């Protein structure tokens, strides 16, 4: 208890320095939080649910993939395919300002089972979709961005399908954030409205396990090896890994910046603690004379740094978290689309605290070691 009182007193002694150091940690943790949120979101989107037992069937050579719809029943019949669905892509502009929206037309009956991240979807919404031919299940980010409500209609000016501007009725919201930038709609509506009854873009297969998957993949590829339109089969995780490769450069630059930010924090804190220790040499000598152990002095210096770091960390992360929340709720004078795209998850509050405290620990290690070794005689010889 005494230790804590002493610690707090020490923190309050040079108020300007404490405040400045803490503020430096606040701003650095704030931007650290933002940068990490970007990589966190990217990694989450591309990697979180990729599975080895879900296969994607694609046109063999060309991107974007497209293969004949007559393959679908044949592939679905292959032994080992437990469940399947197809995708058609449909994208366009949602408003005159050029906001883009990406739609996926697919089967409704097994939407929840075939799409990782949609397990939480309310089954009643599926029923509602089956009743509403032009229905759409829309990601939360699109709703936020466009200020749309469930129940209203919207129109997409397509750039993937010329002169096929479709109208949709919002039946419900997609749960979670994996599909937050997409909307799902019925494949029968797509086929009729876009007059595209001969092709599909991707077919998804659910297989029992990885071993089974390899056999199914080989069999499906073999089936069409001599047709003009060949297909290839990949596991979802392999496809995702390739997609993630596209963002590699940007992610590594952000990671580099995050590393620089951490080093920066350590330096600022170390510098500040270093100065504090230098100024308090003689009183540390007094502590020693009074019989306090060197470890006590060590703990005091480190404790002060960790306290300042942790405080700065939680304030920095808390501020960005708060701004992100207010931004999502449209309570700020300017709405930042960047923060809508990369929202700060609540776990970053703890993150900020831990980062701040660790930075305090690392930054104060060397100054604290010096403080611990303060020579009593030497310190007093300077006082006179």
């Amino acid at each position, binding site marked *: 208890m005494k230790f804590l009182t002493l610690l707090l007193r020490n923190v309050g002694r040079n108020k300007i320095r404490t405040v400045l150091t803490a503020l430096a940690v606040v701003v650095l943790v704030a*931007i650290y939080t933002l940068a990490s949120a970007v990589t966190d979101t990217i990694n989450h989107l591309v990697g979180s649910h990729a599975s080895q037992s879900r296969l994607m069937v694609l046109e063999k050579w060309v*991107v974007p993939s497209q293969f004949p719809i007559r393959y679908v029943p044949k592939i679905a019949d292959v032994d080992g395919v437990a469940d399947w669905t197809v995708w058609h892509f449909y994208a366009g502009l949602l408003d005159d300002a050029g906001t883009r929206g990406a739609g996926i037309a697919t089967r409704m009956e097994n939407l929840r089972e075939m799409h990782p991240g949609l397990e939480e979807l309310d089954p009643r919404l599926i029923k509602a979709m089956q009743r509403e031919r032009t229905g759409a299940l829309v990601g939360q980010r699109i709703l936020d961005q466009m200020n749309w409500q469930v129940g209203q209609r919207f129109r997409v000016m397509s750039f993937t399908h010329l002169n096929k501007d479709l109208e949709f009725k919002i039946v419900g919201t997609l749960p979670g954030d994996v599909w937050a930038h997409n909307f799902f709609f019925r494949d029968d509506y797509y086929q009729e409205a876009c007059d595209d009854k001969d092709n599909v873009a991707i077919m998804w297969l659910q297989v029992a396990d990885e071993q089974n998957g390899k056999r199914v993949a080989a069999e499906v590829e073999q089936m069409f090896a001599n047709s003009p339109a060949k297909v290839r089969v990949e596991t979802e995780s392999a496809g995702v890994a390739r997609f993630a490769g596209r963002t590699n450069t940007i992610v590594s630059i952000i990671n580099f910046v995050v590393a*620089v930010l951490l080093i920066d924090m350590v330096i600022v804190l170390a510098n500040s603690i270093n100065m504090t220790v230098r100024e308090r040499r003689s009183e540390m000598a007094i502590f020693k004379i009074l019989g306090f152990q060197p470890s006590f002095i060590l703990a005091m210096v480190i404790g002060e740094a960790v306290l300042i770091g942790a405080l700065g960390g939680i304030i920095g992360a808390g501020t960005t978290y708060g701004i992100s929340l207010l931004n999502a709720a449209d309570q700020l004078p300017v709405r930042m689309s960047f923060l809508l795209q990369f929202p700060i998850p609540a776990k970053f509050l703890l993150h900020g605290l831990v980062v701040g405290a660790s930075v305090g620990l690392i930054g104060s290690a060397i100054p604290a070691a010096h403080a611990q070794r303060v020579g009593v005689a030497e310190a007093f010889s300077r006082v006179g």
Partner: protein
Amino acid sequence: MVPVSYNYRNLLVRWKTTLMTASGFLLVVTALIIMLAFVNGVQTVCTSSGQPENIIVLKQGNFDEVLSQMDRRLVSQIEATPGVLRNAVGRPLASRELFMVLTQWNEQSGEYHRLQARGVEPVAMEVHQQVNVAEGRMFRRNSREVIVGIGFARSQRIAPGDTLALGQWEWDVVGVFSAAGSAFESEIWCNLGQLAGLFHREGIYSSVVLRTAGETAADHALEYLEDNRAVAVSAQKETDYYRQQAEQMNVIRTGAIVIAIFMAVGAIFGVTNTMFAAIGERSKDIAVMRLLGFKRSEIVLSFLMETLLLALIGGTLGALLGCAINGLTLNTALGAKSVAFAFKINGTILAIAAVFTLIMGMIGGLLPALSAMRIRPLEAMR
């Protein structure tokens, strides 16, 4: 004026603190330069890809070649646009192109890779004048021969004489072309008919690039294409098209500046701390200087100078460190394409870094310097 040597000697005496404070500046400047060099590198690729007298024509509603598909009739109509130059044999300088993203199994990595292939006709070399075969020769018609961009050749370690798998066929690499650092350098070029035939895209074109006499002629041709309802296309000057592709870079640039400003604020708090401590330790010095007759303004100036000196050391070292990345080549996604780019530092970036350094030094030094001014000589001497 207080001699500057007073400042720099003080910096030398407290070299540990000086070094730590300066490294705050160093990190800001290094990070800023690297981030901006990335943006600039990618933007250079985009600006060098387009020529202002060229018009790229896509199927109406498309922003990107990847999804655009046009048929023969439409392409002939586009070629008839008035203002399109003709070559020596009287053919219009209109390059029909088929751009395809292909997936290819890579034995070495055991993964599917993406390749970007562009089927062109001989006239393409007259339309895209920045494209030159640098090594080897041009591909022949009706043969499975390709030339590859220098960026692609470098990253895949391919040279003339090698073979390259596209789809299920082996193609001979007969040449390597350079294209002024543009996005084309990340592509594989081959004969249009061959590519279309093998991948069942006969009679389909993704784009037509028209060459006109100059920017004004290009504007006229654009007007014609826009007014002509019968020709359902989206036409843009090539320069605008590639600038649009680089749009995402503006977001990254803004992000870079925001990150740098936050880091700068952190560094400012750091340097303010250091200077307060320095002034606290040297209050007797200041008192002596005041008694010797130096004015308050001179004291303020002296301490501001000291902070700026500190900033300058950190900033210069940071710039040197940041410049080490200049020229490093990497690949990045640009729209649906993947392009090779080189980190590129220019005068503007260095100027931005310099301005950042000076502003950080000024703001960081101001408060402590003002507090130094208020020291009362007689009290401090006690």
